[in-house]
């Protein structure tokens, strides 16, 4: 029977990556001077599992790499090797290499073999220095010939005398004899001389011995293999028929010369068979990698409690449905019961929705987990001392949001380390503790998750920022900005200089990209900073990507959805506050600020109910850090809508972030505040264009 081993690959990859996480975090926590033996054991076992699995499932390169790693760890847990900082550093590099190799194997891609070989060499160097013994002898011992190596081809004469306690190992002499018989033509003679009287007979003791004559063409190695497991629990001698006279008959324990010979050879044979097996796998695995692994379908681990609660809710839904079904009597309409049923339905649907969302949610620790390592490496590289605090790592958020927030978080943390926390000498001068503190915190607030990255570093120098902004023409020479607005300038594209886009923070990855990524997730990012004391970045993200709370609005006969999170307020226009600039742009004075008015019907080319400002309403929205007032005809209700993609079958439309299906089955477009504001700028204000002609 041939089994497709590839079906176990995904589990192997998942558990290996988990194992690597455990290894990494345990290595980071390891106290160099007094390592915790349980921790070392855990690290060893993780490496051991990966090694075992990679061999079994045909990833020999990974297996070979892990071998040295495992040996190092084995010595550490035995106490024959010290746990030094250097060793830990090399082990951490090994974890990185393994991650690369496993990812490559999983995705059918390549990995940087040179880099991996370098790390492998470092591991071997570690192995060479320190440690009491030479690396595990992988070189097979020179196979020792049995004293009776045949020159001729006489039959084998095998004497097999199990020790009395052979059964206690779960071995059965009859099985062994059966295996010998299967090797070739044979004759078996039993010697029952040791059998005691019936009265003293102990069924748990082995008394019988056998002499087996076996076809001489059978390989010695095959015979040794049969006895592999029992060589310590039996007296075995192997001789050639031609030399029968020379062979000594074995008695229990009396003959020592035969025993060691028999004992030594199987080890060599075993190693040889082990190697053979390995080459076989190697061949198989290179074939597999050449074929390429299709990327494993994205999967998620779910707490079974969540699944149970889901099942319960569906059960309640079924009950509600049958309750409503009973009201289907054309004669009498029980409005009371109907209303009750609908309320129940609404509750069921809401609870079901929340429950399902929770299934996609994972704790943010999955993302936070990479930071101890990152902070350690980066602070060392920068010559700074930093302590990382993590708060609220069990806070859950949607899996997709989690995946997409990972890179922005990395950038922000790197930034905090690079530009925020100062070098120890500077901190000392400022009277701060030498070790800086970086805190990553997450919590739920309303329907959002709030992530904060705070440091007690240098904070932002508003004066410098303003000067630089003026230099780049982002801010007018005599424009005055409140401090927060100055801080927000760092999110402006083109703000970072070559000096700041250091190798550490990343080239071409600016704060503007971070802000854009967060915006794409439907979130917002704020920055609070005190010069000299530190900064805090606060990110607010919706818990789920698929649903948003929207305000329905009508323009002409078209219904649109404005995301509530974008709306500042809605108001009726006071014509006095409308100002026209250069005869083209219209501005509305709102409490000291001038915001542009967006005539939606113009931007979207639809026929409005009225083009007179006084007849309509303004919905003040905020997007891309800007505000504008959208002119609409009527405010309709508010509701939660499921976001559906326009791009799947059509493409991205400026000013629109997606579509949804309303209760009546029709499609409504969801407005993108920032996009609309941008669109409004590009399109010149013009008199109302002739509306599109519609067919019936």
């Amino acid at each position, binding site marked *: 029977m041939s089994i497709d*081993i590839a*079906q176990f690959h995904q589990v192997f990859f998942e*558990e290996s990556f988990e194992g690597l996480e455990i290894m990494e975090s345990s290595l980071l926590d390891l106290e160099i001077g007094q390592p915790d033996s349980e921790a070392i054991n855990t690290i060893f076992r993780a490496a*051991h*599992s990966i090694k075992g699995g990679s*061999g079994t499932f045909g990833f020999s390169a990974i297996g070979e790499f892990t071998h040295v790693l495992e040996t190092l760890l084995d010595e550490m847990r035995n106490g024959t090797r010290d746990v030094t900082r250097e060793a830990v550093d090399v082990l951490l590099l090994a974890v990185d290499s393994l991650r690369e190799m496993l990812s490559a194997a999983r995705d059918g891609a390549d990995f940087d073999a040179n880099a991996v070989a370098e790390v492998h060499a470092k591991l071997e160097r570690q192995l060479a220095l320190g440690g009491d013994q030479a690396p595990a002898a992988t070189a097979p011992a020179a196979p020792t010939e049995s004293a009776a190596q045949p020159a001729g081809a006489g039959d084998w004469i095998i004497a097999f005398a199990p020790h009395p306690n052979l059964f*206690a*190992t779960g*071995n*059965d002499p009859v099985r062994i004899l059966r295996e010998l018989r299967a090797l070739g033509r044979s004759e078996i003679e039993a010697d029952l001389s040791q059998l005691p009287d019936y009265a003293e007979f102990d069924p748990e003791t082995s008394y019988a011995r056998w002499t087996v004559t076996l076809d001489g063409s059978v390989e010695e190695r095959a015979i040794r293999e049969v006895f592999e497991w029992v060589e310590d629990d039996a007296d075995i001698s192997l001789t050639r028929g031609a030399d029968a006279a020379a062979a000594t008959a074995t008695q229990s324990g009396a003959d020592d010369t035969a025993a060691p010979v028999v004992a030594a050879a199987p080890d060599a044979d075993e190693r040889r068979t082990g190697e053979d097996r390995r080459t076989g796998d190697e061949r198989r695995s290179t074939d597999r990698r050449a074929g390429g692994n299709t990327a494993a379908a994205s999967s998620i681990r779910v707490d079974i409690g969540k699944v149970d609660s889901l099942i319960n809710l569906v059960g309640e839904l079924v009950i509600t449905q049958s309750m409503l079904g009973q009201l289907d009597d054309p004669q009498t309409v029980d409005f009371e019961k109907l209303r009750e049923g609908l309320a129940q339905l609404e509750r069921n649907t809401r609870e079901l929705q929340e429950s399902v969302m929770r299934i996609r949610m994972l704790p943010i620790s999955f993302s936070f987990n990479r930071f101890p390592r990152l902070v350690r490496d980066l602070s060392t590289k920068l010559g700074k001392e930093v302590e990382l605090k993590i708060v609220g790592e069990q806070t859950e958020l949607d899996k997709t949001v989690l995946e997409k927030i990972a890179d922005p978080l990395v950038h922000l943390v790197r930034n905090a380390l690079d530009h925020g926390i100062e070098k120890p000498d500077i901190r000392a001068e400022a009277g701060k503790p030498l070790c800086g503190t970086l805190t990553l915190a997450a919590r739920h607030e309303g329907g959002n998750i709030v992530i904060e990255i705070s440091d007690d570093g240098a904070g932002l120098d508003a004066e410098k920022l303003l000067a630089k902004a003026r230099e780049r023409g982002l801010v007018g020479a005599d424009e005055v900005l409140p401090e927060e607005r100055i801080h927000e300038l760092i999110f402006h594209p083109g703000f970072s200089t070559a000096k700041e886009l250091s190798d550490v923070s990343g080239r071409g990855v600016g704060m503007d990209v971070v802000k854009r990524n967060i915006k794409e997730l439907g979130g917002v990012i704020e920055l609070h900073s005190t010069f000299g004391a530190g900064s805090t970045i606060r990110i607010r993200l919706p818990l789920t990507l698929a649903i948003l709370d929207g305000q329905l609005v009508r323009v002409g006969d078209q219904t649109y959805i404005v995301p509530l999170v974008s709306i500042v307020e809605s108001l009726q226009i006071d014509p006095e506050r409308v100002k026209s600039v250069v005869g083209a742009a219209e501005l509305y004075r709102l409490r000291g600020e001038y915001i542009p008015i967006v005539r939606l019907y113009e931007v979207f080319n639809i026929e409005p109910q009225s083009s007179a400002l006084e007849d309509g309403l303004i919905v003040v929205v905020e997007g891309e850090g800007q505000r504008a007032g959208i002119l609409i005809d009527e405010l309709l209700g508010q509701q939660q809508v499921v976001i559906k993609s326009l791009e799947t079958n059509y493409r991205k439309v400026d000013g629109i972030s997606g579509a949804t299906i309303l209760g009546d089955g029709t499609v409504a477009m969801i407005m993108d505040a920032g996009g609309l504001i941008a669109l409004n700028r590009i399109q010149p204000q013009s008199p109302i264009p002739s509306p599109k002609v519609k067919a019936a």
Partner: protein
Amino acid sequence: MANVLAVDDSASMRQMVSFTLKGAGYDVTEAVDGQDALDKARTGKVDVILTDVNMPNMDGIELIRQLRGLPQYKFTPMLLLTTESGADKKAEGKAAGATGWLVKPFNPDQLLATLSKVLG
């Protein structure tokens, strides 16, 4: 058919072993470490035990030692799943009462061959 207790802290190994054995008609009970295996072995009799060596909460060798102490498992075949560099584990295992071993990495066919050997 015979009942096999498969013990390994690696889920992928357990799955592979389980799948292979079930496909050949064996009944398989899985355990994630030595203690789990001991509890399960006490609850229901199994006919053969396959166990990894390195596991948390009691390793394979200690498991075998403990099982041998139970009267119903005095003569039950117990196999260790060892790696080729663990030669000392074999000796330790034997001392604890192991019947034999299967060297990792092994493939499904080797597993089945060994098992049928041991169960007769």
